């Protein structure tokens, strides 16, 4: 799992590459927390290269969402692969997160 950071409009974009599972979730969490501690108020998780996400990974998304809500910030998800989007839909997590088809439409709102 790799994480790349970039900026788009006011958003800090975190592009996730590879798998977020039990083995990589804690590494992913510490990277996300690092970004949040750096003062990011608008966070966009770009999932175009996210190949797999398990419950440990979903938990990190929830932690990030909770922290953003507490600090008055905003967390958005974009570019989910159909299989990953289906995981969110099936489990009902798509109603908890703001999910956008692409980074531009997410950062525009």
């Amino acid at each position, binding site marked *: 799992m790799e994480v790349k950071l970039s900026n788009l409009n006011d958003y800090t974009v975190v592009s996730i590459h590879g798998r977020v599972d039990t083995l990589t979730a804690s590494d992913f969490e510490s990277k996300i927390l690092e970004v949040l501690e750096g003062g990011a108020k608008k966070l966009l998780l770009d999932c175009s290269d996210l190949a797999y996400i*398990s*419950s440990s990974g*979903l*938990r990190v998304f*929830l932690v990030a969402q*909770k922290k953003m809500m507490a600090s008055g910030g905003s967390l958005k998800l974009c570019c989910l692969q159909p*299989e990953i989007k289906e995981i969110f839909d*099936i489990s*009902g997590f798509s109603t*908890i997160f703001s999910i956008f088809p692409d980074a531009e439409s997410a950062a525009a709102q």
Partner: protein
Amino acid sequence: MEYLFSLFPVILFLACLFLLDSFKLVSQKLLLLSLLWGIIAAGLSYFANSWLTNILNLHYTTLIRYIAPVTEEVLKALLIFALIRIRLIGFVIDAAIYGFAIGAGFALTENTFYIMQLGSDTELFVWIVRGFGTAIMHGGCTALFSIILIAGMQREKSVWTSSLAGMALALFIHSGFNHFAINPFLQTLLIILVLPTFFVIIFNQSNSMLQNWLEIEFSNEVEMLRMIRQGQFKATRAGEYLASIKKHYSPEMIVDMYWYISLYLELSIKAKRNIMLKESGFPVMPEVGIKEKLIELQQLRKQIGKVGEMSLRPLIRINHRDLWTMNQLK
């Protein structure tokens, strides 16, 4: 001062256990019920012990060493037994907390009674031993019974065997404590050192088991449901398995099995999602039609019957923990 030393430690210990419940498995209503049951059990024990002393003409030493531990531990354990049987307790963590709460309710009543009986002239040492030693021992014994019973249920052992094993350990500790074979102060110190360490180890282990369970089952269930919804179920190993047992059942039964698997997966995923939401501090989402779906699942389970359920075991093996998880959706 006697109130502080005899009542406060057990409440503090219970609060610490409650805070260690990172998955928020414990319901506040059941926690209060457990405390209340502890108070009732103390009252009932008092009458039972007095009655037994009279009819058996018991000596005080015999009563506190051998008889009181039995009446008290059995009465305290009754609620835990019932809660586990009706699947309102699913994991070691909630079992231990409810168990400790019952013991805490019991000890609070007992210690208040002793304060009223003995008055404030009694040495502080007595209240320290009662508050840190006896009270924590009461909570710890019922918690141990709960842990052993739920661990047995999770391993699909007989409920009676697990109950007897749990009760035997609780009685051994309670009776051993009441023998005061070593200095009461040392005994209390031992309880203070051993029990918290034991609970921290058990809670850590249970948390990591719970995380693994969520990790493996959630992903597998999502994947299987995804295949079902895409009409690709036949291509999966589960689908192949269902096709292989087709000849043993009527077509209607196979349809019921298919919907049973599908509905079970949907509800199980939602229940696990709710556990994850609670762990992260999110409110659980109310969902329309959940009750109807749970009823439908029960109906399908009945229609399939025990034999059908046995046949589906390689695909879905519903155990006590799964049924508890489903209960969380109600």
